[in-house]
């Protein structure tokens, strides 16, 4: 028996209680309970770990001290986006996500966890309104995993094994999709026009065929551009008997149309902008949505939560829809694994959609567009700076080309950082065809004064 002192996290660390429990079991020591573990596999002595910080105060002091070496986006003016965006998180979203019941519940259970399941069903329902589709998955790990799953689903639904993906999806998302799909779907990349950001329709026309399961595009793209040829892309996919899959940033859906209206069969995307802090990337969570048809629903690998009746008339209950689909049942016969993902963020995203409402979402989207265009306009006034560097329409992100300033993005961002600004994501190694360019993200958190300050500081840096 370890004689370590009583620990506040461990009720039965009290020696008297432990002894009484051992007596009740009828063993002399805890060691007897470990009898099945052979001596040769035992840790000799004690692990080499730091001395414990037993008081909560000492622990807090230490960890806060370490984390205090960070610079955060609440205090620094931030223009990084590129897949994780700084939006305003309403206090009510934090209050709900921090509730101990939601925070410490686990898997879906119809009775004891009814409230949690209802919150998740409501998330799916509101997302369904946003994208005008009747089947919505529980969260995936992130947008990339949502897109990967949507593409693999399309392959299973159509019985085909090839897909077209956009070259403007960013290096990280593209590599995640490629790595995941590799055993199942052969991917071909649709190039984009480095002048406009638009996808190359001719290449799509050449590449789609009888083996194409889907054409996947993003709206807006990783580079921020709005793909204006979606109707043509949908038609090319459908004419070949393929599905049209669209990845979206949901904050755009108050002003941009629901993807099924321009032909999308499956919609996927990222939830993080909906009331979730960035958490150094931990705030990401993806979603997948489709028509409520058996051929679609039966191919989801994710949890699906359904509403149904109880024995009491008018009472709602919730449970897992077609549980047999999941890898919990299919095990080694699975096509895709699932597991614990990012459900708490679905609850937060649901709360956000309920708070912002239809009018708020439209105002949010319009405000983002106005601010981002103002920022592009201001930056574009600086000598040698091209902004927006891509001619096409854009939503909240845009490319800034610094090539003619003779400075690298790395140099400029280093100088901006010294002035308390996180400049846009450096695209120079990710998209060499765009030269010394950076991707700037502007959202509703940025005031005119913030954007003017960026412009002034950048002017100083480039002077």
């Amino acid at each position: 028996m370890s004689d370590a002192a009583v620990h506040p996290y461990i009720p039965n660390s009290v020696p008297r209680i432990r002894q009484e429990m051992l007596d009740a079991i009828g063993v002399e020591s805890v060691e007897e309970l470990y009898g099945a573990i052979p001596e040769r596999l035992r840790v000799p002595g004690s692990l080499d770990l730091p001395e414990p910080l037993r008081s909560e105060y000492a622990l807090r002091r230490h960890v806060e001290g370490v984390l205090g070496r960070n610079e955060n986006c609440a205090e620094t003016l931030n223009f990084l986006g590129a897949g994780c965006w700084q939006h305003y998180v309403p206090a009510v979203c934090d209050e709900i996500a921090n509730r101990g019941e939601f925070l410490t519940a686990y898997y879906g259970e119809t009775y004891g966890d009814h409230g949690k399941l209802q919150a998740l069903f409501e998330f799916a329902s509101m997302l369904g309104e946003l994208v005008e589709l009747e089947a919505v998955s529980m969260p995936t790990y992130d947008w990339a995993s949502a897109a990967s799953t949507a593409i693999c689903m399309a392959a299973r639904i159509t019985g085909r094994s090839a897909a077209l993906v956009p070259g403007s999806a960013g290096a990280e998302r593209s590599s995640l999709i490629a790595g995941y799909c590799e055993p199942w779907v052969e991917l071909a990349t649709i190039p984009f026009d480095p002048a406009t950001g638009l996808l190359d329709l001719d290449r799509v026309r050449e590449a789609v065929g009888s083996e194409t399961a889907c054409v996947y595009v993003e709206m807006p793209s990783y580079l921020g551009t709005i793909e204006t040829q979606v109707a043509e892309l949908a038609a090319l996919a459908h004419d070949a008997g393929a599905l049209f899959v669209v990845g979206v940033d949901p904050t755009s859906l108050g002003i941009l149309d629901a993807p099924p209206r321009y032909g999308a069969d499956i919609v996927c995307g990222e939830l993080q902008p909906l009331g979730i802090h960035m958490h150094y990337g931990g705030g990401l969570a993806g979603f997948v949505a489709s028509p409520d048809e058996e051929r679609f629903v039966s191919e989801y690998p994710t949890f699906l939560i359904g509403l149904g009746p109880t024995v009491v008339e008018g009472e709602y209950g919730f449970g897992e829809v077609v549980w047999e689909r999941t890898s919990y049942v299919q095990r080694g016969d699975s096509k895709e694994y699932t597991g614990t993902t990012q459900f708490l963020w679905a609850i937060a995203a649901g709360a956000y959609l309920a708070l912002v409402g239809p009018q708020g979402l439209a105002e949010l989207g319009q405000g983002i567009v106005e601010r981002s265009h103002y920022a592009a306009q201001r930056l574009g006034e600086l000598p040698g700076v091209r902004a927006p560097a891509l001619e096409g329409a854009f939503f909240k992100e845009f490319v800034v080309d610094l090539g003619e300033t003779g400075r690298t993005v790395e140099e400029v961002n280093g100088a901006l950082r010294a002035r308390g600004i996180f400049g846009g994501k450096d695209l120079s190694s990710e998209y060499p065809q765009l030269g010394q360019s950076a991707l700037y993200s502007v959202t509703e958190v940025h005031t005119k004064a913030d954007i003017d300050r960026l412009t002034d500081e950048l002017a100083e840096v480039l002077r």
Partner: protein
Amino acid sequence: MTLRPFHQASWNEPILLELSSPGERGLIVPEVEDELRAAVGDPLAGLPPELRRTEPPALPELSQPQVLRHFLRLSQETFGNDVDIHLGLGTCTMKYSPKVNEELVRSANVADLHPLQDDETVQGMLEVLYRFERMLCEISGMSRFTFQPAGGSQAVYANARMMRAYHEARGEGHRDEIVTTIFSHPCDGAGPATAGYKVITVYAGDMGYPEPDAIKAALSDRTAGLMITNPEDTGLFNPHIDEIVTLVHDAGGLCHYDQANANGILGVTRARDAGFDLCQFNLHKTFSSPHASMGLPCGAAGVTDELAPYLPSPTVEFDGSRYSLDYDRPQSVGKIRAFHGVPSAVVRSFAWVLSLGAEGLRQVAETAVLNNNYLAQKLSDVRGLEVSFANENPSHRLEQIRYSLAKLQEETGVGTLDVARRTADFGVASYFPSHEPWIVPEPVTLEPSESYSRADLDTYAEIMGEISREAYEEPETVLNAPHRSTIHQMDPAPHDDPERWALTWRAYLRKSEAGAPTASVDLE
């Protein structure tokens, strides 16, 4: 009978969309300055009109207090480990998630970090990642860890990808089979299957765990590796584990140790000491990060030096004065999850281990095992409940046990799903029966981690005893349960019927207008 009278909150709360009151608003988004607006006009004026949303989404319209009240009512209708004796969720390692750790991750120095910030601006976060990696290396004996996988299943998948990269680099890409076991976690089959492997599942022998000979029979020159849990869900530690590892190595395969539920062996036995090449810990299980309604997980994947080159990018490095992210890793499997996974889970687990130290971790393990065996002793009085493989294998279990209610079912007609429903009437979360398939008939899997008091264990045993009594004396009470929960008994059949399932409110409305699922059901 000392069980307290209980009724769970039951608000009969409408679906949020039913509460909509047109015109109400829950949030005013930041307003755009007039001067800014005047400078840009309507930037999307040139967009093709068919791309503009003309019909607003049918989101609810609600004031802020209505939204808050709705969700707090739903939270009251939810058991979490903060609320009830949550030990019924075997294989999940439910435990106390310290509140101080929540405050740490809510600070702007965690919550408001962008994942692409320059390394110089995240030295504190990188220090946590680096130091916690060293801690897990000590706890497991492994050489390196990645925290990028955002969940246990994703960590298993990542390790399958690393196995493949390893074999391909050695010109052995023909190895396309993974061996797992029936009592290992389902992801130990599903992860490698997703990565393109053919999966062979080995069943348990008489002792309740897979025998070395059975594993050996599944091996060949096509074996890429083994993915196994130990103790498996039965709670039985497989004492032949190192022999099994050697057999797999001799066949040219690698071995992955699924340590999602490592709670009983912290500081007692280590993955590397049994010869494993890869392992994973679920920080949201053993390492106290909250389960978050199936959210915010981290699957920490550990490897030996030999496999370290294949770890996902980036890794966290330290030169003695400065922490940095290393993306220059040519043999890496690349990305498994966007950015750096879920680093806030790492911050929480780092703080948890710091609060315990080596002695404390050992105390966690010992208490988990003590609690489990104490609860088993108390449950031995419950009529109709038996420990699986108890006759064949008398070993003490470690941190969890798969029980069986087959006898109860046979003698009373009351099965495990009925009993699980009934437990909700006593104020505890319905227990987890078992992963599929149900090898142990009418299963019950309980895992009383170190967070539960002796009084909690006594209460839980008493609840199970009372339900057993009911099953023998008044089975209808159990069969018609729950009676004191948020809702009443639900018919699961619609969830498997395309005409009746409803994944969203709009689907429900369409189908109920067509007459499908609105009427109440008669289960008899």
